[in-house]
């Protein structure tokens, strides 16, 4: 039985395995499609739209769409580049992302995408929302100023019974991803570190690590995000 699929990204033929998503197939083939909410090992939900591509003139999220034979995907075209840039800008203006003093700087995916897409001044007005910081856990801080609500923490940080440490609270424009107050107090060390690692931005901070990593050795100091995928 033939398990491979052939399709095109920006005119280039890509061979993929059946059942792979476009993002998986593209990345395996060395073609970068930017992602944020998508996370290895968890079922994609398509909530950030960073990975938007065009298939038969329709916008689709590449992290949720499976590949199929003969599919023609548009990825690196001006229209999509600008759209992705506008999504990044929207995330910047809807939170309080003060990169210069954020300890995730240099390791932050949102910041790295901002650089990759050459965001200078966002086209949207800043909303400067009033946000707080939850420091009640002895292990981590949850800084709501920086949360982009990608749900990566909700999907990956669970206790041994599968119970979530993080969950949505409130509705509409008041919605926030919060840490369960009780579970936060007894959070094991390795899980706390993993939570910080899995958060693409600086919303989950493992306490007292701070700026231990010098400028110059951080993940995106030398090469832009995506260059680890591109061939």
């Amino acid at each position, binding site marked *: 039985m033939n398990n491979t699929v052939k399709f095109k990204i920006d005119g280039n033929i890509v061979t993929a395995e059946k059942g792979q998503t476009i993002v998986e197939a593209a990345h395996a083939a060395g073609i970068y499609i930017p992602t944020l909410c998508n996370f290895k090992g968890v079922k994609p939900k398509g909530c950030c739209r960073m990975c938007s591509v065009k298939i038969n003139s329709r916008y689709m999220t590449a992290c949720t769409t499976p590949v199929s034979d003969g599919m023609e995907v548009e990825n690196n075209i001006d229209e999509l580049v600008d759209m992705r840039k506008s999504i990044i800008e929207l995330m910047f203006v809807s939170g309080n992302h003060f990169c*210069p003093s954020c300890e995730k700087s240099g390791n932050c995916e949102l910041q790295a995408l901002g650089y990759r897409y050459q965001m200078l001044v966002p086209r949207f007005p800043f909303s400067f929302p009033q946000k707080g910081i939850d420091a009640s856990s002895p292990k981590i801080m949850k800084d709501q100023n920086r949360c982009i609500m990608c749900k990566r923490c909700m999907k990956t940080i669970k206790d041994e019974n599968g119970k979530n440490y993080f969950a949505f609270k409130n509705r509409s424009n008041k919605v926030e991803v919060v840490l369960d107050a009780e579970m936060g107090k007894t959070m094991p060390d390795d899980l706390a570190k993993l939570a910080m690692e899995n958060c693409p931005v600086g919303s989950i901070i493992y306490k007292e690590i701070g700026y231990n990593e010098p400028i110059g050795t951080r993940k995106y100091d030398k090469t832009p995000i995506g260059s680890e995928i591109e061939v």
Partner: protein
Amino acid sequence: MPKKITIEPVTRVEGHGKVTIQIDDFGNVRDSRLHIVEFRGFERFVQGRPYWEAPVLVQRLCGICPVSHHLAAAKALDVIVGAGTGTGLTAVGEKMRRLMHYGQFFQSHVLHFFHLSAPDFLFGIDGDPLVRNIIGIAQEHPDLAVQGVMMRKFGQEVIRLTAGKKIHGTGAIPGGINKNLSIAERDELLKGADPLNADKMVEWSVGALDFFKNYHKNNQEMVDGFASFPSNHLSLVREDGALDIYHGVLRAVDNDGKKILHDVDYQEYDKYIEEEVRSWSYMKFPYLKDLGKDKGWYRVGPLARLNTCDFITTPLAQKEFEEFKAYTNGKPNGMSLHMHWARLIETLHSAEVIRDLLNDPDLQNEDLVTKGSKLHKGVGVIEAPRGTLFHHYEINDLDQITLANLIVSTTNNNQPMNTAVNLTANAFMNGQREITEGMMNAVEVAIRAYDPCLSCATHAMGQMPLEVSLVNEANEIIHRRTK
């Protein structure tokens, strides 16, 4: 009927000030005030933030000396993380921070001298503003201009290699530093191609000092007499009395050189120093509690440091220090323009210290951080280029900042600057009914000697934008002059 003259620098950034001079019908100066609008929102802003963020966050207070804020905050947090009060760090931790600080000191002092003061010396206080700037220097004294640019660049390289970036780096962290200096980095500074190496910096610092001393010799009356007044002086000194801009105890002396603050631990600075609020100014007026508001104000900065310390640890700067002290027979020096002399001696000292530190193998050690049991309060004090800088933080059990109090150098110099402006107003304006170019320049030069942030911010090209208005009691403008 008294009239008011307002000199208002029109600024491009947040720090801005204006001078109001009140004269009566006969043109006699009755009063003068220097208003500085200072950004104080910061102390509220950091509340609730994780304590370790402070050293990186506070640098944003100032685009001119961010390293001083970075280090003062880090020193306060050393106390909080149980690394002691300034002497508890590992050798590499303390020495990397010192290197960063002396690098910042060097570049800041150089900037002040070459870009801000040298134009006045070369072209005269009332020289044509069109040439009285760094561009004018570049045209008439190209070698001097090149030295200014290269010395500044060297200082910035020292900062980059210690803090990670030329501006707003992250090098100092609570309890130590996040990187040491590799051999390759060290050699970049120690053996850099001419002129970017430590030896050249020492040589050029000596040259800059000679330049000033020569100017002084030819203009003694002006340099000595301009805005000269008695005052107290305050700074950190090393425990043995040596000049130390990174760490030490607080010492203040009066106009006769008598100690009025006896080498105290700055963790208790609020036991000795009080800040007065005056209705007409956003900026507070600090004073020594023991002496009270009227007698307790003090000067900080280069002049104050050389007035409080007993000696300097590096040989060339010590030799210059002896000459400087001899000029006033060992007594404190109260002459505002001698600030430049003191600043250049410190520049030389910084160059010598940088060179010596670079030769110290401790900088390649790997034990970067020290920590102990946590405390809830920490105070960090450092000698910023412009003078003593206080950072005080308190935290809760959840590691959030609950209180921040800062006394910045310019605030410490608030009363001295007001005094200098007043003296200048009296000397240059009494009996005059018109605002002359010379008057405006004189006031500007008096303020600039103290190198307040506003002067750097508004004055990078050698000309402080000013608006001078003469108004009567009914606030009607009689005469206005701008430049």
